[in-house]
């Protein structure tokens, strides 16, 4: 800071720092010596000081008149309250911010490597195709897998070509539908049909004219 005086461009700059007491002690002494020997510099200093005092006085007067002290203190209390509310809110949100920042790190660690995505896509397509094939075909029995549904011990006539599940007319002239279910026998070799029961659906049919 010793060479601050050399850095300053003009007298006003030097004198303003001198007036505000911001010059280093050595520079301060040097300015004092110059002031003692230079009358025009002293005039300059007086003018500058007068200017500063004038400005300071005008602003302080304006500030004092701008608002009565009681209103000023009320406003101050309100402002402090507002900011302190914000401070409390901020402090409350702080841990949440910290924890929310942790989540992406955790999620990121669970991500699969990039090379696995094509395999995953292919697997999904395969699963989808198998599911579609299974459901749209009405079950595996239509595609070469041994027939699992057989009508057992039913009485009456049945037109095997016409209906699936078969509809029969029993001895009482009622239309009945036999619903089979699927299952495996104990040997797990042959699929057998198990009749789930017969259901009277006569009400759904018009009487067959003989």
């Amino acid at each position: 800071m010793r060479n601050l005086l050399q850095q300053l461009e003009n007298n006003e700059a030097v004198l303003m720092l001198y007036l505000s007491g911001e010059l280093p002690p050595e520079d301060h002494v040097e300015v004092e010596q110059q002031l003692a020997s230079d009358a025009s510099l002293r005039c300059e200093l007086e003018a500058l000081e007068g200017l500063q005092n004038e400005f300071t006085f005008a602003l302080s007067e304006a500030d004092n008149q701008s608002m009565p002290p009681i209103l000023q203190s009320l406003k101050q209390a309100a402002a402090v309250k507002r900011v302190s509310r914000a401070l409390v809110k901020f402090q409350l949100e702080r841990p949440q911010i910290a924890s929310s920042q942790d989540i992406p790190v955790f999620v990121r660690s669970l991500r699969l490597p990039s090379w696995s995505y094509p395999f995953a896509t292919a697997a999904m397509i395969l699963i989808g195709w198998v599911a579609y094939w299974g459901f749209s075909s009405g079950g595996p029995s239509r595609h070469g897998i041994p027939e699992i549904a057989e009508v057992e011990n039913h009485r009456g006539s049945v037109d095997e070509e016409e209906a699936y599940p078969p509809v029969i007319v029993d001895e009482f002239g009622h239309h009945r539908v036999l619903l089979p279910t699927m299952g495996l026998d104990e040997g797990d070799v042959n699929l057998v049909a198990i009749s789930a029961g017969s259901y009277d659906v006569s009400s759904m049919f018009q009487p067959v004219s003989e």
Partner: protein
Amino acid sequence: MMSAREASANLTPKSEPLPVTVEPLGVTAPSDESLLADMRAGHTEAGEVLVQRYYLPLIRYLQRLTGSVSLAEEMHQQTWLSVLEHLDKFDASNKTGATSGFKSWLFRIATNKANDYWRSNGREKVAKQNLRLVIDQEAPPAESGIEATEQSQKLQAAIRQLPENQRQVLLLRYYSQLKFVEIAEVVGCPLNTALGRMHKAMLRLKELMA
């Protein structure tokens, strides 16, 4: 002929405090830095003390800078919210003054808020500034609700007519009482420029007030 000592005694500014001063730190008053540390630890009371301590200089600085009470209040709140947001980033050790690191930082944030406002409203400002000046000379600002004196209005109008950069330096010097070196840092210019702006601003104010 005065001696150098006498000359400096006469010309050195009196040690009277300016009307708007930051509350002096007594023996028991905690420093800004310790209050900041408490705030970081989650003590909201420390924040309230800081807000209270800087309320008057900061709000009056913003009022003079923006020329609007409501805008100043909004910016005051925004400034403190920014302080809270960047609390962890503030490092007092790299600031120029040991005791005014926080104050310097606080006023820098406030100045930046005002700059951001003027930037975003630049177009409107240019169009309305002249009209506003004319209106202000006719009647006191309605939002203050207080009838300001003619001198006070004249001063406010004169301050508004100063170029933005001069106005900032002038008001920072008066309200924050930062050193010129710190003011230069706050507004982001060399020390000589800050001193030059201060001098020009005072001369211009005198001219406008005459």
